[in-house]
């Protein structure tokens, strides 16, 4: 009995661990070659590296994150570009109406939050909001799906479909925002004014810490919310999965089903809200950076 419980525990932690590992392509020191982390894929023997994920250094790419984010980006921006291209004069169609609704929504958010003259803010808000939203929506797909396909023969054993749950992606967005905020600040206050604001006025070096942490927090807020959501889906899935392990656990089926549904419904809110918050904060930071005070 005790042994079974221990086995279960190992399996559970393995399961969670498996779901938290990205498909990583990186530089392996041991063999001095590029390749996928050990045992992550069965597609190609020559691409299988001797290193585990933890043994790869900074020079590694999360292929699933990159693939999913670029794929979703092409999908979303392609959709908008295509609809715009086919936009006819006269009465707009349903898709055209949707595109214009999004445009109006983001346009009004920008015009009410940003009072400067720069033409980059609206496109930046649009791109970040929709890209993040498309990422976050991946969280509503069943957590098992990617692995299911992997085991069904695609040859990829590790695949995280949620780019937001990989800190690299939100951090990249926040970095772009930070660069723009810096640029706007220098534009408004001059280099001297910006440095003075960053290191001297009014709280000394604390201002610099606040400047950096505000942008890191922008990324962490998004990452944390979605990572936690994903984590809860995984835990619910484990509870759910007990059903298949032993007859005595059958009772978990119904609560699992209800909880999964409830969390998915609630998560729709978080999915949209986090994309919206990221966009609004971006607008607010850029507005703050371009106002004289």
């Amino acid at each position: 009995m005790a042994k079974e419980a221990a086995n279960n525990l190992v399996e559970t932690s393995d399961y969670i661990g498996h779901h938290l590992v990205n498909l990583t392509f990186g530089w392996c020191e041991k063999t001095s070659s590029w390749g996928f982390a050990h045992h992550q894929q069965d597609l190609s023997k020559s691409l299988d590296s001797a290193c585990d994920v933890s043994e790869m250094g900074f020079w590694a790419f999360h292929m699933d994150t990159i693939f999913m984010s670029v794929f979703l980006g092409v999908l979303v921006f392609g959709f908008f570009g295509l609809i715009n291209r086919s936009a006819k004069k006269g009465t707009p169609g349903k898709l055209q109406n949707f595109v214009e609704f999004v445009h109006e929504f983001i346009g009004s958010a920008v015009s009410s939050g940003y009072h400067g003259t720069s033409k980059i803010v609206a496109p930046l808000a649009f791109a970040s909001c929709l890209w993040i939203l498309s990422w976050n929506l991946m969280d509503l797909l069943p957590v098992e799906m990617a692995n299911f396909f992997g085991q069904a023969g695609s040859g990829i054993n590790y695949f995280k479909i949620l780019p937001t749950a990989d800190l690299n992606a939100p951090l990249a967005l926040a970095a772009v925002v930070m660069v723009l905020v810096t640029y706007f600040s220098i534009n408004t206050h001059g280099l001297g004014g910006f440095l003075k604001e960053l290191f001297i006025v009014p709280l000394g070096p604390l201002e610099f810490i606040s400047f950096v942490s505000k942008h890191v927090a922008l990324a962490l807020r998004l990452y944390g919310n979605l990572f936690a959501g994903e984590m809860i889906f995984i835990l619910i899935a484990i509870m759910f999965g007990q059903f298949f392990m032993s007859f005595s656990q059958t009772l978990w089926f119904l609560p699992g089903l209800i909880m999964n549904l409830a969390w998915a419904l609630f998560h729709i809110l978080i999915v949209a809200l986090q994309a919206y918050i990221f966009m609004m904060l971006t607008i607010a930071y850029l507005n703050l950076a371009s106002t004289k005070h």
Partner: protein
Amino acid sequence: MNINATFFAELIAFCIFVFITYRYIWPSMASVLEERRKEIDEGLQAASESKRQLEEAKEESSRVIDAAKSEASTLINQAGSRADQLIDEAKDQATEEVKKIKETAESDIAQSTNRAKETLKEELSVLVVAGASKILNKEIDESANKEIVDQLIKEL
């Protein structure tokens, strides 16, 4: 937290998507909306313009109808008064005619009366002369006494 080179890939991807949005998607959306706004504006203007024209046409037509009505009524009035005038004229003429005829008849009557009187006087004078001559048994020189008789007749 495993931050690695994925960060740079995402950074580049984001920059590209922002650039695409900035360069193509956002302006084209804005221009489509702007075009639609203009179109709607023009449509509304055309609608109000045609409404105004309709109003004008209505006004014009009612004006024309009013003018025609008043013209017709003046014509009718004129015709009425003309008819009255004609009747009056005819009446006047008739009265005049009647008067004239009456006068002619009266003068005719007067003339005939006078003539009859004259004839009677003459005949009376002849008769008087004849009677007197018979009484006097003497031929009276008719011509000599003529003057006297005539004088008498005149005095009658």
